[in-house]
């Protein structure tokens, strides 16, 4: 999780990823941010985020993003 937080803070240092739980729903992250986040997550965690994963609920919090990455790593 710390690795993920570091990646996210590198992309948007102005956002408190440790506490925010409505990153997309509250308009803090938008789909513009998602391009960079998806690219960095794919590279760093050696996963392939699919279009079916590109849902706001998967990016609403660091925990949600982490769980999505974990599931992909485990091949689910």
């Amino acid at each position: 999780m710390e690795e993920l937080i570091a990646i996210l803070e590198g992309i948007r240092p102005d956002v408190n990823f440790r506490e925010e739980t409505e990153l997309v729903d509250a308009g803090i992250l938008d789909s513009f941010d998602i391009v960079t986040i998806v690219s960095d997550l794919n590279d760093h965690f050696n996963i392939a985020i699919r279009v079916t994963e590109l849902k706001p609920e998967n990016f609403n919090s660091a925990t949600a993003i982490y769980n999505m990455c974990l599931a992909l790593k485990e091949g689910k």
Partner: protein
Amino acid sequence: MIRVEDIKLIENIFDQHKGKKIFTNSFYFLDQFLAVINENRLFIIQVNQNTVLLELKPEINCYELFYFIEDLNDAFPVESNLPIVMEIPYRGLDFYPETIVDYWCNSGFNKHINRDLYSLNLVKYDALDSSVNGLEIKITNDLNDSKVIFELLINTFDRYTGDILSIEDVQESIKSQNVLGAYFQNELVGFIRFYTKGKVSWIGHIATSPKFAGKGIGKSLVSSYIKFQSDAGYVNFQHWVMSDNIPALKLYNHFGFQKINKSSISLIKK
């Protein structure tokens, strides 16, 4: 160019490039893809290892291009009867996407507009002093003002990347009380249109009549906008600014807006 009829085609694009280093500017969520597909506005072109999606934008009579480029040695000859525009997001000057910008310039596109995102967090609200003699700033309620606002919009903002609104959209904004007008002797001489996404208040458009340029109207509008939205409980303010718009940058700097880690460059082929 083939029309995309099913999300499976998009899934196939993602699968095709799985595990490979690709350049992409595709920033739609799944529901956004589905909406465009359902409206029959999404098209695909594939050339060897590279894929392009074109979204038809009938309101501005052009295509918006989303790319998935795996092979930079394979130029992409996109042709169409309409202009094609693309936006490439990047996170600040250190990450300017030179490689992919060069790729598209070699494929017949030209650099268009560079924009940066500015943000303001108001820890506490202080009264802002930006009054101009004889100027009244108030929420625009008169639908007749939509014509003036629409004219200012189309004369101030870029047609392809400026989120130009139709006059009906302007009227909807007025009805939603999302427009502050600057009135000088009862004449509308400027406006600021704003909206909110969750906790964030955004400036959509701000413009001043050319004959009143340089008279502090922009400062008065931004001041009133921040006060209005602060009173409504908003503490985070964001908006996009063209990188070379020095007067705008000075204006927003006055209020403490700061550039954050988010920029974009648009390219166009006409």
